[in-house]
């Protein structure tokens, strides 16, 4: 089933077109990455999908038009984590911030739910901390936890790995994978091609949908990426140069290399 179905979506800020006639589908339970240069319209698309901005065209979530949802229903169906966690953590403490959405959505067992989400994200120690006392990585984690606590069926992440140190980045990728394993449909707007490589589908957006496909299909077209201000991950470029199949993670890369070294033609074997 399609979690998101968009038909002819256009949006303009005053007289500047940001989104032009977008049409695409996102399947339920998938991780989809939307790649695009700065100003490509990724955040604007997200704000349209969550119903904050209203462009021309049709957006359907699980087969139902977004205009038929009330705000509470919409927040439980689709929600968004902003690029800057300071925009999203507006309550005085981490606990209050996670509780805020739950209280507004009318849950009775707010405290229990908050404790559960703190445990799930391994941030129990941050429970009573002020957001301005957190590191950027911690803020990002809390911002995601505060949205995930509302248990939306679709989660939109705007540049989730931007400005994170390698450890925080890996932690975040693990969280995204775990959420997806639990059945959440995830859409990521990113410049991080390494992250996009790990998703099920990739879309290139540059005001229009330029191309859509599996990570392998998208990243094998280096010219298209360059034309749209993007670049393939180093590992992909290396494998393309070697004339090998593109791996999506380190394990697959090792398998391909091992199999290549064992059965590949010795005469053209590159020096690895």
């Amino acid at each position: 089933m399609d979690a998101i179905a968009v038909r002819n979506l256009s949006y303009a800020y005053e007289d500047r077109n940001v989104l032009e006639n977008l049409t695409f589908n996102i399947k339920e339970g998938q991780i989809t990455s939307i790649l695009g240069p700065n100003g490509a319209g990724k955040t604007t698309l997200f704000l349209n999908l969550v119903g904050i901005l209203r462009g021309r065209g049709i957006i359907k979530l699980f087969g139902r038009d977004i205009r038929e949802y009330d705000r509470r229903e919409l927040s439980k169906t689709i929600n968004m984590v902003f690029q800057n966690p300071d925009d999203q953590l507006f309550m005085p403490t981490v606990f209050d911030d996670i509780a805020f959405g739950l209280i507004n959505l009318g849950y009775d067992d707010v405290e229990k739910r908050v404790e559960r989400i703190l445990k799930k994200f391994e941030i129990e120690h941050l429970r009573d901390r002020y957001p301005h006392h957190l590191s950027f990585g911690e803020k990002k984690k809390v911002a995601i936890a505060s949205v995930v606590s509302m248990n939306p069926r679709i989660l939109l992440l705007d540049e989730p790995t931007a400005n994170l140190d390698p450890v925080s980045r890996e932690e975040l990728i693990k969280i995204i994978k775990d959420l997806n394993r639990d059945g959440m449909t995830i859409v990521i707007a990113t410049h991080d091609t390494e992250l996009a490589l790990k998703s099920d589908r990739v879309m290139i957006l540059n005001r229009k949908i330029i191309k859509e496909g599996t990570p392998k299909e998208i990243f094998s077209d280096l010219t298209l990426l360059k034309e749209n201000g993007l670049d393939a991950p180093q590992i992909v470029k290396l494998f393309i140069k070697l004339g090998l199949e593109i791996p999506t993670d380190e394990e697959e890369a090792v398998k391909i290399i091992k199999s290549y070294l064992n059965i590949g033609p010795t005469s053209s074997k590159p020096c690895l």
Partner: protein
Amino acid sequence: MKHHLIDRYYYLDSFIHKLDPRAKLIGILILVFSIVLLKNVFASMLALIVSLTLLLISRLPLRFAFEQLKYGLIFLLALFVIMMIFGHKPLEMLLRAMSALILLFVAFATSRFDVSIKALDRIGFPNKLTQILMFSYRYIFVFAEEYEKLSIALRMKSFERKTNIFTFDTIAKIIASLFIRSYERAENVYRAMVLKGYKGNPGMLSDFRLTLRDFLFIAISLYLAISFHVISWMQ
């Protein structure tokens, strides 16, 4: 970057710290309202003594208290001088204002600020006011960090503050830039709130429990508040 404001010593272990934040605010607000209505120097002097006694009971470091109160006190002293020049009798005003300032400081310095906001909300303070306080406390540090970053960027470009047009022009531009950022941030924060189902009420949970100590504090505050006026009337 770690910032602390008025609640740096919220964790101390004093009688005032142990009070339920709601009882503390009710008791202190009763005293403040009573004190600002006094019209007698002697009673105002007694009020100041009570305020200082509460400050001592709270065990807050006096140096910290002075640091936090100094700008308020400077303002009051300036007002005192101006009123003297214009032939008023400002001693009463000075004593009352100082007492009120110290009392409010004790109230807010002995609990975490977020807890004080929740307590204000629970004792029936206007919702809009508690929301403004809540957001101010959250974002004042974000703006302070942004200002700090801009100041560092200026120093990196060899900018030196002088009393010339260039300095004023540069600082004005920084403030303008902060305003624009604040406006953009406000828009994003509002969007984030709407996405979390916000409809005008700040959803806050609190776990307050009143004990005998709290009722006793409110009763003593009430007794003192009335006593000040009886003394004032007897004088």
